[in-house]
């Protein structure tokens, strides 16, 4: 760096302005500052948006989507939303018309030579199978499979044994769904043993409704005549194994899950704040008593007692079982907050600024309202935010093991429980409620983290 040559002038005393520390940041109130920090945290903001969206959805949902969560649509069981919803109206009995064309097994090989065929149209009312009898067989066994049958694999659901005496004919009326089924007929030998070779035929079952059924489902009479095509109700998120609308159940389930998840922590945190500040402020025997009791309740195994409570309460007919769960949660969960609040109160009591305020002659009410409450509130808010996901977890766990809300009241946990039974065939029945539980808990956890960081940062910067 090239320096300008120095001159004696440079060595005269310097004139300096007064040194002023420019600490002129705007003064923010406690909550304004916390809010600003929270908003600055992108993850926490996103979580807050998710939480608000979930709460809004569960509040407004039943008004927007008015489908009854308990109503069963037995024409559409375990269906995905994009499944074919068409149904054709057929006359009264819905029996197959023998004059209709006959479908034969395609693809050539018919090792048994029994010429298995489907007579008429395969509908959800009935599928009529016919085949030629053989002299060698002592009878036939009919199978139905929902997948294509490869060589050597099981043939599927055994439907019936057809004796040799009658005609080679079988009518399947067993819980047919609009689907492609694979029927197999195996001949039995004299000893009743199945012969190795069997004939397989696919049947594309068409959904049909009889006129009476269509009327019962509320279709306009003008549209109902044999051969007419109607469209069944739409389920935006599909249906469960009992044909109930998933969206409606998720919305109503959210009300149960979120209600327990928010109401229970709210109550027990309030109890905790009350008892904790009582213990912290009064001290002495009151403090001793409350803290001993707290120790005792903390030592109890939580979920075991939740289950015991549920059993002990008993649930009468027509009750949902929400209230007992709420009470049990509150009764078992208050000690954590109590301890925390007591600790906070004791700590704040020792702080210099409280002493200073007291010496300045502030009345007790002022001390409580302006010093104690704001400082405890932050911690309480964080506790509350973290208590919500854990209460939702508990509800889900209990409902999952069948100890939560009573069917048919939906809750996310009980929906998961139902969903696991059919998850291999219809995973959406598990995935949807499970995703919602996880999303909710995740959002509250992230929000709690953000809130704690915001309050922590505030605490740190104050020092």
């Amino acid at each position, binding site marked *: 760096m090239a*320096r300008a040559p*120095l*001159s*004696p*002038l*440079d*060595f*005269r*005393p*310097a004139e*300096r302005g007064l*040194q002023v*520390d420019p600490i002129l940041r705007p003064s923010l109130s406690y909550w304004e500052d916390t809010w600003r920090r929270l908003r600055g945290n992108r993850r926490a903001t996103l979580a807050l948006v998710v939480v608000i969206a979930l709460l809004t959805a569960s509040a407004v949902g039943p008004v927007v989507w008015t489908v009854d969560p308990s109503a069963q649509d037995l024409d559409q069981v375990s269906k995905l939303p994009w499944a074919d919803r068409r149904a054709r109206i057929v006359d009264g009995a819905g029996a197959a018309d023998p004059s209709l064309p006959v479908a034969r097994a395609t693809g050539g090989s018919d090792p048994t030579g029994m010429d298995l065929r489907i007579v008429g149209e395969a509908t959800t009312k009935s599928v009529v199978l016919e085949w030629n009898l053989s002299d060698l067989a002592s009878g036939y066994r009919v199978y139905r499979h929902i997948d294509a049958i490869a060589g050597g694999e099981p043939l599927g659901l055994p439907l019936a044994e057809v004796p040799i005496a009658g005609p080679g004919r079988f009518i399947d009326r067993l819980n047919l769904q609009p689907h492609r089924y694979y029927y197999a007929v195996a001949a039995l030998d004299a000893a009743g043993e199945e012969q190795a070779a069997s004939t397989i035929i696919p049947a594309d079952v068409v959904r049909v409704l009889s006129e009476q059924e269509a009327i019962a489902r509320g279709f306009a009479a003008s549209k109902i005549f044999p051969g007419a095509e109607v469209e069944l109700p739409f389920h935006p998120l599909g249906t469960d194994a009992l044909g109930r609308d998933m969206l409606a159940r998720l919305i109503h389930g959210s009300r149960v899950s979120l209600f327990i998840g928010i109401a229970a922590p709210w109550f027990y945190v309030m109890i905790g704040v009350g008892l904790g500040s009582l213990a912290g402020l009064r001290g002495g025997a009151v403090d001793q008593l409350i803290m001993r009791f707290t120790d005792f309740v903390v030592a109890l195994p939580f979920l075991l007692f939740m289950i015991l409570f549920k059993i002990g309460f008993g649930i009468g007919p027509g009750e949902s079982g929400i209230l007992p769960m709420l009470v049990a949660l509150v009764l078992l969960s208050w000690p954590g907050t109590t301890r925390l609040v007591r600790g906070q109160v004791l700590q704040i009591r020792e702080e210099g600024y409280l002493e200073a305020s007291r010496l300045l002659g502030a009345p007790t009410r002022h001390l409580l309202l302006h010093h104690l409450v704001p400082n405890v509130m932050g911690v309480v808010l964080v506790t509350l935010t973290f208590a919500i996901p854990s209460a939702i977890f508990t509800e889900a766990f209990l409902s999952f093991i069948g100890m939560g809300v009573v069917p048919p009241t939906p809750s996310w946990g009980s929906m998961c429980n139902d969903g696991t039974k059919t998850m291999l065939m219809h995973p959406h029945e598990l995935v949807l409620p499970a995703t919602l539980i996880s999303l909710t808990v995740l959002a509250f956890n992230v929000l709690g983290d953000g809130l704690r960081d915001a309050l922590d940062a505030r605490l740190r910067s104050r020092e």
Partner: protein
Amino acid sequence: MNALLSIENLSVEFDTHGGVVHAVRDVSLAAYPGETVAVVGESGCGKTVTFQSVMGLIPMPPGRITAGEVTWRGDRMHLGRSAGRDLRGTEIGMIFQDPMSSLNPTMRIGDQIAEPLQVHRGKSRRQALSQAVSLLDQARIHAPERCAKQYPFELSGGMLQRAMIAMAIACEPAMLIADEPTTALDVTIQSDILDLLADLQQRKGMTIVLVTHDLGVVARVADRVAVMYAGQIVESGTVDDVFYRPAHPYTVGLKAALPARSIDPGRDLEPIAGTPPDLFAPPAGCGYFMRCPRAMRVCEGHPPDLVSLEAGHVSRCWLHHDYAADVSLDQA
């Protein structure tokens, strides 16, 4: 005589959220065998960072040595994350400010002292432990056997600092770096610890580097002193030079801020007004400009160089320039 440890033009920076902190700026320093060198300065002046970076004890990143060369017994040292690894514990021992937190809370004192012996001297655990007891004894701990079996939380601060010293000298190092060894201790214990250090130095011929903010401690034990301010050495020389013939306004200010018993009982302590400069953006000129009672126009924009006044006495100030008015600093 050749220097044991010689630091030349060392600069250290830290990356932080607020930007880059220039913690140490162009520091040169040497320590000769058997002497006690004191490095003095207020908090944050870079005195601790200087030695910790040489010993590889600062976290890297965010810390980074940007310039400089360090030699040990004439050999160039590697400077980096593992700087001084083969010297630590064997050639150079270190003790720190807070003995309470500087000892592992879950290990017995004896085990912690025995550790370097096991690692560097290949001793068995039993041999090392018995030597640990004798080291504790050398550190003037009364019941060394009992102490060796205790955990740090069971001992007082003074005892722990003795244990730290015992640990630092376990492998008979040629140099002991004592970083604020007495700051966290009571005044009476401070003096015991200083006596102990002086005594050990005599017996073992160690070089001691004493990092402190306490001029009183410096006056008592040091042979040579370096005064640091805002990451730079502003003055260095023998104790007599620096105390009786201070050549830098900052040193003068430090002395004025020192409580003196004998000289003038009625004198008020004079604090140095203002705060040290922001090391995120070191000033273009002299770091002391804003606080200096003798500040001149040149000081604001031109960094002063170190000027040699007498043999071994240097000062970084424009007042030594020929153009500057010749006023004795003590009267300033």
